[in-house]
């Protein structure tokens, strides 16, 4: 590299400049991958019946996202442009296999619950989207921040939806009964807690359509709070 090129280089940014902070905060709110960009909906519908599953799915996506963005960003000047999508795919697929192996080895129960969905992380558009839109043209550190931001933006929606569905669908949070037990006691035939008073779980919440409706409600709340997000047609 010549001296000239060094001289025109932009002044060094601080690690947590305003621009870098925005990379994390924007995807959490006004540029959320699920509610604004409407990406990654497939898993948001499939994996949100229980909070536990949603949590582990989020952890897996955060892992794949951060390392994926980092690797792609480090390789960005080496990747031949004609095969860049294939390279991105190889990176996601390998990371997903690593996650799957680690889950199988260290948390086998979770691995069983997520079963096929871990493999589906590969098809999560958020990941490929960030590789192509951000990591391919940015330095490693901002890429990591971007990955954290987007993965967390995905994660909080997933967990909120799962929370709503598990509480109203099964009366539980993380598998713990919060409204009492709706299975009649073997001896007395009595249900406990709210169920004794006639409360019933809403089975509709467990079905996939309600996930879409819950996501819809989040989108509605978000857009009514910030009118700038409403598209003009």
């Amino acid at each position, binding site marked *: 590299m010549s001296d000239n090129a060094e001289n025109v280089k932009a002044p060094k940014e601080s690690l947590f400049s305003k621009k870098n902070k925005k990379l994390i905060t924007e995807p959490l709110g006004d540029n959320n991958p699920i509610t604004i960009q409407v990406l990654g909906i497939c898993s948001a519908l499939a994996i949100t019946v229980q909070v536990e599953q949603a949590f582990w799915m989020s952890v897996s996506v955060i892992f794949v996202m951060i390392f994926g963005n980092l690797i792609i960003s480090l390789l960005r000047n080496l990747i031949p442009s004609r095969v860049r999508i294939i390279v991105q795919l190889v990176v996601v697929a390998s990371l997903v*296999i690593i996650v799957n192996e680690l889950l199988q080895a260290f948390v086998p129960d979770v691995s069983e619950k997520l079963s096929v969905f871990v493999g589906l992380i590969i098809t999560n558009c958020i990941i490929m989207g960030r590789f192509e839109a951000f990591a391919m043209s940015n330095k490693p550190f901002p890429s990591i921040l971007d990955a954290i931001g987007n993965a967390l933006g995905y994660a909080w929606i997933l967990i909120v939806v799962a929370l709503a569905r598990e509480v109203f669908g099964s009366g539980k949070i993380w598998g713990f009964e919060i409204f009492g037990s709706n299975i009649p006691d073997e001896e007395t035939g009595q249900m406990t807690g709210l169920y004794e008073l006639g409360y019933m779980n809403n089975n509709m919440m467990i079905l*996939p359509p309600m996930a879409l409706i819950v996501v819809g409600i989040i989108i509605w709340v978000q857009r009514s709070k910030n009118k700038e997000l409403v598209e003009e047609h």
Partner: protein
Amino acid sequence: MAINKDSNGYTFGFSIVLVIVVGVVLSSLAIGLKPRIKANEAVKKKMDILAAIGVESSRKNGEKLYAEYVTDSYVISAEGEVVENLPEEKTAIKLDIQNQFRDKKIAKQDRLYPVFEAELDGNKVFVLPVVGKGLWGPIWGYLALADDYQTIVGASFDHKGETPGLGAEIKQSFFEKQFKNEKISKGGEFVEIQVVQNGTGTEDQKVDGITGGTITSKGVEEMVNRTMKVYQKYFSKK
């Protein structure tokens, strides 16, 4: 000299290096974690056997409960004879019957069939593993047979990757419970269990299939009947 990143040579070179790196990383990880994953699978197998006789267990106490309930295990041949002196990897608990089912090189009459004898509330129960094909991949399970050698007292099924909400429902208790009290033989003759679609599952020898999961349900029917036919040969000699 600047490298032309758009040249064919560079593109091929990059791809080859990438594939080699990824291959090495993934295969070394797989080899490194294999013992752990195998150990997890072994415990899971014991938990499944316990589930078939209605004993709930966790990964923590699976080994202990297995030792408590399961009193004996052995392997029988396709002709229904007990096979003695098997190598370590072919003992009842170690035998990989899924692999045996998949491997085309192993002839049907050479397949081995494990039997686990358990004791539940003072009664002897036989736990018999079954394997078969679902829609997307393998399905498997365990049937528990009472000591009259014909009545099923429990069943647990599992699958690799059947469709959630449809075929995957075979592992739910509402489906598994239906096998209770069905018989695998009448008057010493083997009888089939049918998985039906017309809602007559409460009748004898019939089990209601799963809506939208017909191929998986039929897979369960096929695997149960094919395997029970072999075990019946063994039990009819008792």
